[in-house]
């Protein structure tokens, strides 16, 4: 086995056993499961609906129940209340979120809502009751009016990319998911790779290692090991995500419809997009890994890790923020430029790919630029790493690092 292989194997084993990796992987998996399953466990109703108690004339509450069925689950209908509803009342009535008291006024329907969380009571409720308001004013049946009041709207993607609105929304979700995955993976990896380099630097093992292996090879082995553990971590999270969705369907069969929608959305992710995801993930991971490793090689005390990590964190945060704008404005010229800029592009370009039709030449250019940048960062980081490992004492200034690299 060559020396890169020896160091890769040792690094990989050490990382797989390291606390940050184990804790990060477990916490990530648990978070994914909790965020997926808990809403179903706690609410027991289909995702996106709210439990309500309707109070009023049976005719009114029956009509309202039918009209709001898409957004609200009516857990109980009562003809009247003896007192103003309290939180205890809500808990006692199927743990409802809101009590909606319906009454007739001279000019139509009135609704008074006692909400457990008033800030989350949606405006959709009033829109849903529109046909009933008209029916009460005109005396016509609600069923007839509904077709005249609610205009069927069909949304089509001008670029012909998405079949419907839910497909476009799912693509945005995928883009957000990618941004978050890359962001979390880079930050966890940063901690792991910096700790590893700092341990070797502060315990003076680095000098022994560079007497045996070229610093650039050492850096390569570390980045490869870090990338391998990162991909394993990602795989674990994806598996837990899939497992969670199966648990959700088992717990609440009515969610199956949503799952079908998700599956339909997933189909809209083409193999080319999956390849792009993988390519930009690996490139972004490599770019940041070498920079974090180089930064860590400059410290003598582990307390200084924060000081050297800060400058590298700036592009990570910038990329994360710009990528969120890219999801909203994928065709903006500035966003297009950012999708070519090294360190930002891994975040921004995939967001654009997921939600818009990016010209192939832009994707190719971004891949070429960022691959070249990853190599250039690797060479630069190798030089910093080479001198950084032997620099001891106070944290060197940028000027001192440049002088040492020239020397």
């Amino acid at each position, binding site marked *: 086995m060559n020396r890169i292989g020896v160091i890769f194997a040792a690094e990989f084993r050490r990382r797989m056993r390291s606390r940050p990796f184990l804790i990060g992987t477990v916490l990530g998996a648990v978070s994914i499961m909790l965020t997926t399953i808990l809403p179903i466990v706690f609410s027991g109703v289909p995702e996106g609906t709210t439990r309500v108690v309707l109070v009023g004339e049976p005719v009114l509450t029956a009509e309202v129940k039918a009209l709001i069925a898409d957004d609200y689950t009516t857990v109980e209908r009562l003809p009247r209340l003896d007192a103003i509803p309290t939180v205890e009342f809500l808990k006692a009535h199927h743990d409802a979120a809101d009590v909606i008291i319906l009454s007739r006024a001279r000019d139509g329907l009135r609704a008074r809502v006692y909400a457990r969380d008033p800030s989350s009571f949606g405006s959709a409720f009033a829109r849903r009751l529109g046909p009933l308001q008209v029916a009460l004013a005109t005396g016509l049946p609600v069923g007839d009016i509904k077709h005249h009041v609610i205009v069927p709207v069909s949304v089509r993607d001008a670029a012909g990319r998405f079949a419907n609105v839910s497909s476009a929304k799912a693509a945005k979700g995928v883009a957000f998911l990618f941004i978050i995955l890359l962001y979390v993976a880079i930050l966890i990896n940063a901690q792991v790779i910096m700790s590893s380099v700092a341990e070797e630097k502060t*315990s003076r093992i680095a*000098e022994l290692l560079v007497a045996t292996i070229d610093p650039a090879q050492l850096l390569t082995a570390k980045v490869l090991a870090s990338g391998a553990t990162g991909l394993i971590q990602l795989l674990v999270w994806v598996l837990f995500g899939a497992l969670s969705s199966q648990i959700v369907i088992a717990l609440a069969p009515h969610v199956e419809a949503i799952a079908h929608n998700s599956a339909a959305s997933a189909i809209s992710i083409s193999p080319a997009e999956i390849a792009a995801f993988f390519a930009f993930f690996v490139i972004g991971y490599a770019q940041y890994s070498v920079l974090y490793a180089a930064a860590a090689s400059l410290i003598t005390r582990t307390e200084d890790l924060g000081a050297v990590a800060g400058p590298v964190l700036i592009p990570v945060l910038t990329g994360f923020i710009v990528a969120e704008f890219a999801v909203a404005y994928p065709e903006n010229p500035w966003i297009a430029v950012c999708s070519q800029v090294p360190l930002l592009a891994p975040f921004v370009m995939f967001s654009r790919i997921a939600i818009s039709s990016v010209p192939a030449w832009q994707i190719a250019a971004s891949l070429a630029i960022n691959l070249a940048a990853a190599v250039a960062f690797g060479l630069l980081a190798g030089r910093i790493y080479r001198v950084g490992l032997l620099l001891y004492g106070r944290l060197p200034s940028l000027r001192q690092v440049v002088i040492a690299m020239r020397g």
Partner: protein
Amino acid sequence: MRSLTLSHVARSFGEAVAVRDISLSVPAGTTFGLLGPNGAGKTTTMRMILGIIAPDGGRITWNDAPIDAAVRMRFGYLPEERGLYGKLRVREQIAYFGRLHGMRRPHDEEAARHWMGELGLEAYARLPCGELSKGNQQKVQFACAVVHAPELVILDEPFSGLDPANADVILHALRGLHAGGTTLILSTHQMWQIQEVCEQFCIIAGGTVRAGGTLDELRAAWPLRRIEVEPNASVLRDVLDAMPDLRASTMRTGNGVPSALVYDLPAEADVAAILRQLVAAGSVTRFERIEPTLQEIYARTTGAAP
């Protein structure tokens, strides 16, 4: 015959000159002492031999060929600042450094076991290195430097921080390596140990070579000798003070006798004539011509002694 040669090697860091001009040759199988005060350029020289840093000028060769990565695989290094993976077990750590130097399984494990036995580390084989005492950690570090049976081992302060018993263990191991034909380069400030184990020496200061050779060669080239005379009587001191070539020594006497008169004299001085004059002047109970020690030569060469 394999040998290490440095020809006019130089290295600066910005404005600071670490190594000005060093030329030396280490024959194969020799145990070589590299001496010098702090900041003399010893560590920089060793790092250049190992390729950790590149020289600004000059040439370093092993067996008359430049030292490349493949050659460096056959070198071993014990740096002055010790470093081990604290969580890695002793046996795994030694075997890992064996693999880094090209050993394959199971030879790395066998070699690790051998060196644990040599250095008395068998009982700690399964312990993480971070749990060992400082002395035992240094022995593990030593094992990591030699596990792959290198042709050349460079040891920077191998005895620093070791108690006498552990220093003896390392000395014994060094003798074993020497007997096996390994070339050893040692740097230490502990003169009695380096004098005991090394065959050749190089004294550097200010980034240049000040003296070099075997101890006999260093002594032969040394311009001064010392005499010790007893008793410390004024009549004898008057005779010695009257001799133009003699000078009361500022060095402490070799045997630490406070009652002796101690004088430096040129190496070529006629000692018998001096003794005759002393005997003619008064009673002499002891007269001894003392060869310079390595400590003396080192101290005066580097300017550490007047």
